[in-house]
C-alpha cells in the first residue's frame, strides 16, 4: 500500500505545481492583457485550473459546479458584456491607468501579509490523502438542506431579486 500512496502523493504534487503555475500565469495575463477578449479567455484557464485544484482536494461536486457555473455561464455573461459595451476585439493601449504603482504596492503588501500569516499557521502540515471510495455529494446536499437551509432559502431570494433588479436596471426604455 505504501508505494501506491506515495505514488499518489507524488502525482498529486506534480499536478498541483503544474496547474498552479499555469493558473498564476493566466491570472497575470487576465490583469495585464491589452486585449479584452484574450483576458476573458485567460480567465477561463484560471477558472478551469481552480476546478482542477478542487478535484485534487477531493471536492468533485464543487469542481463540477465550478465548471458548469463559471465556464458555462459566467464567462458567457462576460463575453456578452464585452460585446454589448462594444469593446474593441483587438488589443487596446489604454486598458490600465497611469497610477499602477500604488496598486502594485498594495497588492504586494497584501500578499506578503497573507503569506506570512498562512505560513505561520500551516507550516509543513499536510493534507491527508482522501479515501477515494467516499463520496461527498450527498453529504453536501444534506448539509445544505439542514444546517444551512436558511442561507439556501436566502440565496434563492437573492438570485430572484438580482434577476429582477438587473433586468430593470439594464433594460432599454
Amino acid at each position, binding site marked *: 500500500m505504501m508505494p501506491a500512496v506515495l505514488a499518489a502523493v507524488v502525482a498529486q504534487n506534480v499536478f498541483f505545481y503544474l496547474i498552479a503555475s499555469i493558473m498564476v500565469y493566466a491570472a497575470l495575463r487576465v490583469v495585464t492583457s491589452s486585449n479584452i477578449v484574450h483576458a476573458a479567455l485567460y480567465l477561463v484557464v484560471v477558472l478551469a485550473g481552480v476546478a482542477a485544484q478542487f478535484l485534487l482536494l477531493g*471536492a468533485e461536486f464543487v469542481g463540477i459546479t465550478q465548471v458548469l457555473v463559471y465556464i458555462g455561464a459566467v464567462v458567457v455573461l462576460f463575453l456578452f458584456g464585452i460585446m454589448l459595451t462594444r469593446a474593441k476585439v483587438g488589443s487596446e493601449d489604454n486598458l490600465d491607468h497611469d497610477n499602477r504603482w500604488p*496598486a502594485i504596492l498594495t497588492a504586494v503588501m497584501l500578499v506578503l501579509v497573507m503569506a506570512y500569516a498562512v505560513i505561520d499557521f500551516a507550516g509543513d502540515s499536510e493534507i491527508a490523502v482522501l479515501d477515494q471510495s467516499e463520496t461527498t455529494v450527498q453529504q453536501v446536499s444534506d448539509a445544505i438542506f439542514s444546517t444551512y437551509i436558511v442561507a439556501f432559502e436566502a440565496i434563492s431570494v437573492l438570485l430572484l431579486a438580482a434577476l429582477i433588479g438587473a433586468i430593470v436596471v439594464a433594460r432599454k426604455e
Partner: protein
Amino acid sequence: MYLVQFLLLSAVLFCIGVYGVLVRRNAVLVLMSIELILNAVNINLVAFGAFNRDVGAAIPGEVFALFIIAVAAAEVGVGLAMVLTIYRNRKSIDLHQVDLLKG
C-alpha cells in the same frame, strides 16, 4: 500535499485579482478580476476543509464554496447590468471617467 501550497496559491491569486481591480479602466475587466479574488477564496475554503476533514470540516468548506459561486454569479449579473446602464448613458465604461460625485 502540503496545506500551505494551496494557501499560497490562493494568496497569490487574490492579490493578482486585487491588482486587477485597482488598475483596469474597463469595468468588465474589473468584474473579471473580482472573479479571480472570489476563486482564490474558494481554493482556501476547500483546502482548509480538506485539511480539517477529520473534524468534519470538509463539508462546510465545500458548502461555503458553493454559496460563494452562486453569489458570485448573481454579483456578476448585477454588475454587468450596471455597467450596461452606464454604457448606455455615457457611451463608455471607463471607470476613470466616472467621477461626477466627489469631495
